[in-house]
């Protein structure tokens, strides 16, 4: 009996010791852990650069929703790498079949009821491409990158990073990345009032080791003929230039051409790009008179700003705030 009591006492002592050790251990270990996480925790820039690489190099299939102005459009993107080259197959899940395939410097469009065709392009046109191909190092002149915290998107652990515009001439973004693959899972376009203008949200992400057999097969198939957009360097079209550009925007196109469907209507065209957003500026003779000299149409992040002066009409289209469009339009002057 006494032996038994002794044993029990011993056991309880032991367990007490063990438990005290258990309680003590996190306190002891914590400083170490803290140092470790400090070293291991990547910066927002590292995450964004990881995303850039993942978006280009992985084989994946995304199902996602585009939301703007209460309209939701479900879409699919299959991306793969074939012979070291990116291939992206995109299609609309609802409504008429609309598909596109981008591979090897071409993007081909297929649509129910119309002729398929290709366009020459070296720029990734897929859903997150504008963000995922941004030069984040140089982009810090325009944006500040801040880690907002962890979240869960499409059943995956995600990290939210905010790209805050440093000026009022562009929108801000919040991008959510999958913490395992670093692929983008959600993108919100946000205005200065913190309102979400447009949202792209992945609902299903499937990453594979090998290229999806379907796009592998597509990569070897013939594509429709490449169309070249007719440039009309018409001498009669007056030339124009911009006296003001929003910070870090560059002119990437400057030409005269005819609008599709409007054969008799040549326009002067200037395209601006800041690495994410592309803005089209059209200068033409006035076609229809607006009751007001200025007109704004908006859809999600996209803005169409029209300004009419005497006989000239200026249209600015792009994912920019109104103030930027107004300033661009106001700075247009005829070239000599």
């Amino acid at each position, binding site marked *: 009996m006494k032996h038994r009591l002794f044993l029990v006492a011993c056991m309880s002592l032991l367990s007490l010791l063990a438990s005290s050790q258990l309680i003590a251990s996190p306190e002891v270990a914590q400083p170490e852990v803290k140092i470790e996480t400090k070293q291991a925790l990547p910066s927002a820039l590292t995450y964004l650069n990881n995303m850039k690489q993942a978006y280009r190099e992985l084989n994946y299939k995304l199902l996602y929703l*585009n939301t*703007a*102005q209460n*309209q939701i*459009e479900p*879409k699919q993107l299959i991306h793969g790498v074939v012979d070291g080259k990116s291939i992206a197959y995109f299609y609309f899940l609802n*409504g008429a079949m*609309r*598909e*596109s395939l981008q591979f090897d410097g071409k993007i081909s*469009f*297929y*649509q129910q009821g*119309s*002729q398929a*065709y290709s*366009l*020459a*392009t*070296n*720029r990734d*046109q897929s859903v997150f491409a504008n963000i995922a191909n941004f030069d984040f190092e140089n982009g810090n002149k325009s944006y500040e990158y801040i880690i907002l915290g962890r979240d869960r998107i499409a059943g995956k652990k995600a990290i939210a990073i905010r790209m805050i515009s440093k000026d009022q001439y562009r929108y801000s973004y919040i991008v959510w990345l999958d913490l395992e693959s670093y692929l983008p899972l959600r993108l919100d376009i946000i205005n200065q009032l913190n309102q979400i203008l447009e949202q792209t949200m992945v609902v299903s992400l499937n990453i594979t080791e090998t290229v999806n057999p*379907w796009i592998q097969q*597509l990569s070897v*198939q*013939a*594509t*429709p*003929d490449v*169309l070249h*957009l007719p440039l009309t360097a018409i001498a009669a079209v007056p030339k124009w230039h911009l006296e003001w550009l929003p910070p870090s925007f560059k002119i*990437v*196109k400057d030409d005269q051409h005819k*609008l*599709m*469907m*409007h054969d008799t*209507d040549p326009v002067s*065209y200037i*395209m601006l*790009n800041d690495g994410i957003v592309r803005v*089209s500026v*059209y200068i033409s003779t006035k*076609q*229809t*008179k*607006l*009751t*007001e000299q200025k*007109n*704004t*149409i*908006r*859809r999600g992040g*996209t803005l*169409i700003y029209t300004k009419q002066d005497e006989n000239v009409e200026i*249209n600015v*289209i*792009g994912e920019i705030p*109104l103030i930027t469009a107004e300033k661009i339009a106001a700075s247009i002057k005829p070239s000599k």
Partner: protein
Amino acid sequence: MKEYSQDLSSLMDNELGDKEVINTILDDAVLQKQFSRYQLIGDVLRDESNGLDLRMDITDSVMAAIANEKQDDYVAPLAAAPEPEKSNVVPFMKRFGQYAIAASVAGVVVVSSLMVNQGSSTDPSVAPVLNTVPFGGAAAPVSLQATPLQSENEIKERNERVEALLKDHQLQLQTQP
């Protein structure tokens, strides 16, 4: 069998109340045929046969034919079409309809909005809403709000103009160097 003849005629006249008898008739193929014959006779007598009095019961033979049909004669519909066949899409069109190109690049459809009268009460500070999505977006209708002073025709022209610009914008984006 004979004893049911009376019941059958009662049944025809809706005067048969005995459930058991009805069940017996329902179970007996011979009685059913007899019932059918009585009905036919009745129709002929009442001159309701419309000339086509040979109402032959072909149900049995049809059922038998179906039963004998081989199972593999049926082609089950595919639950879902496989991935779209694209190998045949190798078009060669000498003259490309510019219209078609622009339409599918932009995927934008302008629905001319006849909002002439609705525009009057709207707040002028609110930007009109454009319901369009660039390619990579849906072919959603564009609705352009207009001020009441504009005529329908002007709105239509304006919509067409906006549509043309949007499509060109999309096309330029796709081909940006």
